[in-house]
């Protein structure tokens, strides 16, 4: 079972430029190669633009430039979407060496993710 001290948050204000989703007090959005994977089990996204917005979460391969997979979260104006699972039933897996990034269709989306590395 994951211990509270081993989880971390990713906090970002995502706009129309692609944003590196790195842990708080982290320096890179790349999952360390010493790990197996990063597991995200909570996502809270709020539109702060006042208009309908689309947040796209992107996972890049270890070269940092080849897009491997992505998904969209559609937000109405000022809407907050809260998607919370349990740590042992995570929502998203990013494997060692891969990069986690995000981009929004408008400026901007306030994003919080909670996860841990295995």
């Amino acid at each position, binding site marked *: 079972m994951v211990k509270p001290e081993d989880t*971390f948050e990713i906090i970002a204000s995502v706009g129309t430029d692609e944003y590196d989703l790195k842990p708080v007090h982290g320096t890179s959005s790349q999952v360390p190669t010493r790990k197996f994977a990063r597991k995200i089990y909570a996502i809270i996204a709020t539109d702060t633009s006042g208009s309908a917005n689309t947040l796209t979460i992107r996972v890049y391969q270890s070269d940092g430039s080849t897009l491997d997979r992505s998904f969209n979260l559609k937000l109405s104006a000022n809407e907050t979407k809260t998607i919370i699972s349990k740590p042992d039933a995570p929502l998203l897996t990013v494997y060692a060496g891969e990069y986690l990034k995000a981009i929004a269709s408008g400026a901007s989306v306030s994003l919080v993710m909670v996860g841990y590395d295995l």
Partner: protein
Amino acid sequence: MIKIKPISQAILNEGEDFILAFPITARRTMEIALAGFRVLRKHPLVYTWTSAPTLEPYGSEDATTDFNYVGEDGLGEGDDIFEIPDEYPWRIYHFGIGIRPSDVAVYRAYPAGYPTEGFAWKTPVSPGDKRDYFTGAESPFDNPTTVSESVVFYKLSFTIALSNFSAQSVKPVLKFLGAAYDVAMYRSKADLETLLSRNVRVITVGGLREFPWSIPEEWKHYIQEFMFFEVK
């Protein structure tokens, strides 16, 4: 298969015996000096060490420290918390090390300059290597395990190094948990043979690799050398 059990299950009680083993040669010939003790008094040993340095994320230059003593004010800073004063030559510390958060690795070198190692293919281990460490996964902060079992006695230097395996900077906290014993020493080879035949706990200081160990003057008359195996 190593048993990972809580250090609390390895701590001895008053009246129990144990042997410290000091390898002389541990390759083709196995020759070990043994010192036998009885625990006369036992004191609780707890130290929550909050003076560790901040370690940068894994991959950064400052994610790993060098070996240094555990100081009151930091790693290698302030008084050494494991230094046993001259008036306590019969005091022995027996403890485990709990680690928070789990992704911080501890490497040990005791005596200083001689890292404890299991793998024999490439020595010595350096802090940050992928071997011969333990993390909070193996020895949690709230319940340190025998993976981190350590023994410190008068005149033995105890050093550690830290490495951050996580993606964010951390300031780890360690808990040293165990007991301090006041001991009496068995004085003859016959006594030690009796202890060995009773399967009392044998604790290797710094692992089974040979190193130039030194022991307190007060012990020198009573330590006994045994040769167990010789491979021709």
